[in-house]
């Protein structure tokens, strides 16, 4: 009888030790992956960036161009299907996707306007290009050429950092 009375308070004791162990491991793991900057780039679902050994962190930029297998996007707005860019003849000496060029010119004009009102120091012409790793060089070249034509000469390719 006395034994049963004893059991009741003991069973209400929660064994925290194992949970503590778990928490400690999670804490260490999260501390390791801590980043104060957060990520500047947002990427689409069907866009797989190539792995690279580059350690350079993306700086703040005004413009993002993303190239997936289906669409080319500027600042997450779909602009032109990638298929259309593929169709531009390969021997064109100065290939440019007209819709993309139009959009980029608008962005450039906006940047120039910002310089005029004093929000920016100078037109930087900086762009981060996110390209899916299975895109062929042909499309990449045409997109780069279009960017260069408009005046976005400071190009950065976004890549995934290899974890080693």
């Amino acid at each position, binding site marked *: 009888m006395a034994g049963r009375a004893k059991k009741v308070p003991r069973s209400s004791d929660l064994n*925290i030790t194992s949970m503590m162990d778990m928490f400690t491991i999670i*804490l260490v793991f999260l501390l390791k992956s801590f980043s104060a900057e957060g990520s500047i780039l947002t990427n689409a679902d069907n866009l797989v960036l190539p792995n*690279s050994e580059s*350690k350079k962190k993306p700086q703040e930029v005004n413009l993002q161009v993303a190239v997936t297998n289906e669409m080319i996007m500027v600042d997450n707005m779909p602009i032109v299907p990638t298929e259309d860019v593929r169709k531009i003849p390969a021997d064109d000496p*100065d290939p440019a996707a007209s819709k993309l060029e139009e959009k980029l010119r608008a962005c450039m004009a906006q940047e120039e306007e910002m310089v005029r009102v004093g929000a920016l120091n100078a037109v930087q012409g900086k762009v*981060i290009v996110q390209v899916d790793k*299975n895109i062929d060089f042909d499309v990449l*070249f045409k997109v780069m050429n279009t960017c260069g*034509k408009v005046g976005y000469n400071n190009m950065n390719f976004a890549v995934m950092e290899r974890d080693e």
Partner: protein
Amino acid sequence: MANRQRKKAMTSSDMDLKPFMNLMVVLIPMLLVSAEFAKVAVIDIKLPEARGSQTKQAVTEQPQEDKSEKLLLTAIITDSVVTLGAKGGFMPSLFYREYHHYVAKDDKEDFTVEFEPGKVPKHPKTGRDMQIFERYDIYLYTCDEQRNTLNRLYTKFNELVTNTAYEPVEKVNVGDTVLALTNPRRTIIVKDPSEFVLKPLSAYDELQNRLMKIKERYREAEDGNDIIIAAENAVMYDKIVQIMDKARASEFSNISIAKLRS
């Protein structure tokens, strides 16, 4: 009586974990929010305006104005060859065979197949066509002109082993001095030849080896940090990024891109 005493002693040795728990409960959500799981980096591409929008005409004009001591190092990549060229001429081409490493989305089956243009690889068990986004890696294995893959020694850290003349080696003996392909190269005196493994020679590693040789010889060149990567239309972006990585590893940091016109 004895029982009660023992119980007392036990409870007093228990740590009071409540404050620690409180701390954890606050810390973990905070760190979870600020954690960065996929690290994104960038590669700098330098496009000086004159070079960035170079048209066919500009390319043909270039040789006349160029009488300086420029190296004009170019890596040319097509679907089966990587070649390094400079103003003085070309290095022997590096033939490669392309293998693709797939991981199936549904059953996580992973396998490596040789790439054949226009042919979609099949799942080894179910036989379905593999999707392009299931391709994880592209391996380029160096081969000779008869398309036999070349095997060379690697260290256990997956670094290419070369002899002191910077040629990749197939066999080492005890007491040999070899170099591991890192930047700068690491000297190893062989104690145990079984430490090294024979693996297909990656074209990327051989490219880095050659680039480092060039870097050593032409450090003084006016454009000693510049490299132009010229690719054919069908070359995958992934390969270009890998080559850029190798270029940067061999201290050619100023990378620009050109196109091969067929």
